[in-house]
């Protein structure tokens, strides 16, 4: 089993959309998959998954429920061939402020509990756990990165994000014995099509730290924007170039065998560019 954590320096980089879609792609390809929402300060997966959980991950970490009460099976709802379970964070403002008030002891217990959950899920035959986190260096995101086997850090082509990510990697990831991969997300198509420009960006990012591996570029495609975060594109529009980009990343980095369609940026019109 592998744990994949999705992190970023800034909010709005597309973590939740990325999490929901790669987890769905994994389940579509017969991998038993679990999503855990550890973005306690901005829980969003709840709205995307459109399910009513019996218990939240907040309750689980407070020892108020079992993992079976936490995890909602959406395999049938999404018509998937493999198990697809989600553990959601409570979006109620009282729950968000409650987590903010927790101390170091609680956070240590949370990490311990999540590590034990990993063992339980492994015994239950789960192949992948995909974790959504809060942006920046918050307790829950540090816990999530420590839990992970592979961390994807998403960033946009934006100076704030690039420099923030640079300092986060130098000050946080460099001392960790973890595999780290950068993904440039929501890249305007005119930039994505410009090979020289993209090579230049990649090289600059690689200079940040020897820890950095570059996982891929996801073009800014209107398909994603048009879902208004109400649907999972891997389910509703699996032929989208966005999904093809994610499949390529999963195939290249995770090493799983899934059919990967060729992404031809020349076939994407600039009017399909959500950043145009």
């Amino acid at each position, binding site marked *: 089993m592998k744990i994949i954590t999705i992190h970023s320096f800034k909010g709005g980089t597309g973590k939740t959309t990325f999490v929901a879609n790669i987890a769905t792609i994994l389940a579509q390809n017969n991998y038993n998959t679990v999503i855990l929402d550890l973005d306690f300060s901005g829980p969003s997966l709840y709205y995307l998954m459109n399910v009513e959980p019996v218990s939240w991950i907040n309750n689980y970490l407070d020892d108020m429920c079992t993992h079976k009460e936490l995890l909602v099976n959406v395999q049938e709802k999404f018509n998937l061939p493999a198990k697809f379970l989600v553990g959601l964070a409570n979006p109620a403002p009282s729950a968000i402020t409650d987590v903010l008030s927790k101390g*170091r*002891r609680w*956070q*240590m217990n949370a*990490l*311990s509990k999540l*590590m*034990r959950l990993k*063992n339980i899920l492994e015994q239950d035959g789960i192949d992948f756990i995909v974790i959504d986190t809060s942006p920046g260096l918050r*307790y829950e995101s*540090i*816990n999530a990165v*420590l839990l992970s086997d592979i961390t994807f850090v998403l960033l946009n082509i934006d100076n704030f994000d690039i420099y923030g990510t640079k300092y986060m990697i130098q000050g*946080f990831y460099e*001392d*960790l*014995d973890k595999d780290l991969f950068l993904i440039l997300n929501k890249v305007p198509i005119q930039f994505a099509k410009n090979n020289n420009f993209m090579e230049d960006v990649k090289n600059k990012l690689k200079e940040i730290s020897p820890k950095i591996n570059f996982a891929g570029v996801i073009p800014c495609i209107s398909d994603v924007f048009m879902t208004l975060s109400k649907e999972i594109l891997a389910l509703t529009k699996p032929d989208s170039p966005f999904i093809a980009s994610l499949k390529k990343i999963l195939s290249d980095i995770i090493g799983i065998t899934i059919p990967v369609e060729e992404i031809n940026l020349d076939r994407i019109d600039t009017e399909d560019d959500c950043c145009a």
Partner: protein
Amino acid sequence: MIVVLDIYAIYIVMDDGRELFKRVYRGTPASTGLLMSFIAAIRSFCEETTGSSVDEIRSGDLFYYIKQIDPIIVIVLTSSRKNIESIAETIAYRFIDRYGGALQNWKGQNIFQDFQDTLDKLLDMKGVDRGKVILEPNKVLDAITVLKLNPNLQKTALALIGIKRGTIQDIIKNTNKSVDETKKDLKALINMGYVGKVASGSVEWYFVK
């Protein structure tokens, strides 16, 4: 689950509340006088109002388990109920077997301290470093702490956070490190105050705060 890590302290008192013996393994020792006054008051209150006695008082994660076997009362401060009744009973009977005669005409002399060795053997306790039975961690080992550790120590630290308490064999299951490497890591973590250690029987246990 091991007993030694769950038991914080053992108090043995006469049924009139006078202290006979006290052994504190973990945490700060309570004044036996204060403790007995409180327990006597709450027991008396409960007996009058409900007709039954109190056999435990909970405080956060810990509780005082109270076992009366005349003429003594054994109070165990513990974090686990596992086997607690039989442990308290065994302690009481061992104490009575050994000091029953002396208890009949006891006038307050301090003559019970050698029960400490009996108790430690009973609980299968062995001394660890620095002449202590239990080496307590004094700092919380959490995610932020792990970040500050030398990368070589991070795997061992994380594995211990995952199980909270365990032997070297339990820890290396999740690290793929050798026993010698793990021992070295644990020694460093103990010296930094993040990890505690206790010996029970032939096994050494490591734990986080």
